[in-house]
């Protein structure tokens, strides 16, 4: 094997249980976003755009779709002779099957994957977030600071700081304290779950953590506090830009709506930092003489005969006559009949909505359309 300077480990086992029925059959990183993407496309595209060509993707929960989606990584230009993308599911050893019990145990069980590349640095990522980031700059910073570990941080609103893992630093941005979900936060710099480790430190501490029976084997809860206790050099890397955890139906909807403004913080059109995805190869979208489309994003393969306002439509969606879609997200291949009204809702992929259906929220809560709802088992309105 050719030695690699930096290898990325992408944690993609997230269950995303607050996304309700959207993650019933697929892992959170595979949830559709932004009209043509899946959440994991952002992290994989960041890797390839940052010049990182060796990525281990750790899957566990509902991996079927995610595994086939990633394939050999060609969509992200990660089908390489040396390195490239490797899906790393949990495996059985002679004595037992080892499920990934925490983020640290997932990496620990794949130390052999890392050992074959003998990397100098390991970049730990999560496949749950929407953002564009140049990891190469973070690595340069890590090297310049001669850090043992560098953690990427983002400023969050003070009111929300107690929901995150908060880092306190000195003036040189060296991390002095880490507090997981503090009730009285001293700072509003939250961990984005992106770490760069020196390989030796990572290996040593993961092995140490594995021997600790009281550990929950989590980077935030166990590894980082242990490193701080031992006075290792942990530095904060402040990130500026769009970053969103789309962990709930509400935040998934919000992140989609964020794309629609004329000035949006997440520029999907930027040529120098393309977000790649598996392309469905469908014909151009067709807008009939009756179609009205305002402030929306629409993907290939859609057929639109109704009115679309402030909405995001994925590939292959059909919208019937006199139908109004407002402030909604319609996922791939959904078919919406004539004379429907859908407002503030997320319609999952391949759902068929019959003519005349009205789905709208009476409060401001976003409706996630389900089969049960359409079968009339309980009313949507």
């Amino acid at each position, binding site marked *: 094997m050719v030695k690699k300077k930096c290898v990325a480990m992408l944690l993609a086992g997230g269950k995303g249980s607050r996304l309700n029925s959207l993650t019933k059959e697929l892992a959170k990183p595979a949830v559709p976003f932004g009209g043509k993407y899946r959440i994991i496309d952002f992290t994989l595209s960041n890797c390839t755009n940052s010049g990182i060509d060796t990525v281990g993707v750790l899957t566990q929960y509902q991996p079927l779709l995610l595994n086939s989606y990633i394939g050999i990584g060609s969509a992200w230009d990660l089908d390489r002779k040396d390195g490239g993308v490797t899906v790393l599911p949990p495996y059985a050893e002679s004595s037992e099957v080892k499920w990934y019990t925490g983020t640290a145990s997932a990496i620990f069980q794949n130390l052999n994957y890392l050992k074959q590349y003998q990397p100098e640095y390991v970049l730990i990522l999560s496949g749950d977030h929407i953002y564009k980031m140049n990891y190469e700059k973070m690595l340069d910073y890590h090297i310049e600071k001669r850090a043992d570990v560098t953690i990427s941080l983002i400023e969050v609103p003070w009111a929300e700081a107690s929901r995150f893992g908060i880092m306190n630093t000195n003036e040189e941005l060296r991390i002095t304290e880490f507090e997981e979900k503090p009730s009285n936060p001293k700072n509003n710099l939250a961990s984005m779950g992106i770490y760069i480790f020196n390989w030796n430190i990572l290996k040593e501490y993961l092995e140490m953590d594995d021997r600790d029976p009281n550990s929950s084997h989590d980077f935030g809860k166990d590894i980082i506090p242990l490193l701080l206790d031992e006075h290792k050099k942990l530095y904060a890397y402040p990130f500026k830009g769009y970053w969103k955890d789309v962990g709930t139906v509400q935040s998934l909807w919000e992140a989609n709506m964020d794309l629609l403004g004329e000035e949006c913080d997440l520029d999907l059109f930027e040529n120098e930092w393309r977000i790649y995805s598996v392309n469905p*190869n469908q014909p151009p979208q067709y807008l009939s003489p009756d179609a009205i489309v305002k402030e929306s994003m629409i993907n290939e393969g859609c057929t639109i005969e109704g009115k679309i306002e402030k909405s995001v439509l994925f590939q292959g969606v059909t919208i019937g006559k006199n139908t109004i879609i407002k402030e909604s997200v319609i996922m791939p291949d959904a078919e919406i009949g004539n004379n429907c009204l859908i407002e503030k809702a997320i319609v999952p992929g391949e759902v068929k909505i019959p003519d005349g259906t009205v789905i709208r929220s009476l409060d401001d809560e976003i409706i996630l359309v389900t089969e049960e709802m359409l079968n009339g088992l309980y009313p949507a309105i």
Partner: protein
Amino acid sequence: MKRKLLGVIDATTYHEDLEDLVNHRSLAALPFGGRYRIIDFILSSMVNSGIRSVAIFPKMQYRSLMDHLGSGKNWDLNRKRDGLFFFPSPIVESDENKIGSFEHFAANMDYFNRSTQEYAFISNCNTIINMDIAPIFEWHNEAQCDITEIRHQDGRSMEMYLIKTSLLIKLIEKRHETGYTCMKDVVTDLSAAYTICHYEYNGYAVTIDSIDNYFSTSMKLLDSKVWKQLFLKEQPIITKVKDEPPTKYVQESVVNNAMIANGCHISGTVENSIIARGVKIGKGAVIKNCIIMQKCQIEENCYLDSVILDKDVKVEAGTYLTGTAHAPYVIRKGTKQGALMNS
């Protein structure tokens, strides 16, 4: 049928009537339908019909065609065995639109000799079609034909032929003795010593050979009866993937009866038009009955009616450009149109 057929696409066709659009590219690579190149239609038909070995015979100006096809990966033709082959013509002077020129084939005899496929399906490159070749193959064998020419239901030849590879090799080798220079010569020779059959194709098929029919065929795509015959879920027309984001519309956007590809920014009005990938249309601009190719930029308050903009054209704010349904105004690739230039 899968391993029995070779696909041969003759991409040497040149029509003077298309000059403005093909002076820098092979006709096979002419953009069509917002995101395709003309060759995608026959190539996808072949691949969807199970053909696993396709040879392209291009002539001049094949840079854009090679760029488009690449290794054949998008059509799943980047294979260890068989796959996509490219045989540019060694003959510089034009060979007057002979589909399946034996001289051109003769320069690449090794391909035919090495192929294990028993039959060859030869086609031109400029037909807009989504065709299943399997029924033709069965028909050809049942009728015990030597050569089948595919004809449209109106009787005209579609410049597509089905022939045994061994017979094709023989025709190429004996071209000087027989005087046959191409497939057309053989099928139009009434005294030919072969059983020549005509298969009648009833599906949608248009051969692009002039700006006029390029324009009208494109406009007919907006008729759902037409595009439903071309864009089938089970037999997709495959093209080069571009990784463009979905198309974005703003508050002022007005669109009706339009086909719009990905990666566009539509801030103006689009009516009865086909808009390709990555096009920007500014506020207050009105685009009617137009074909706008990839990456064109149309600034604010322009008015375009019956215009074909080739790739990378920039139209400056306030420009007024019009053509007619039978003589669309064609603007060449990469040029800039200013408001004052046409006044």
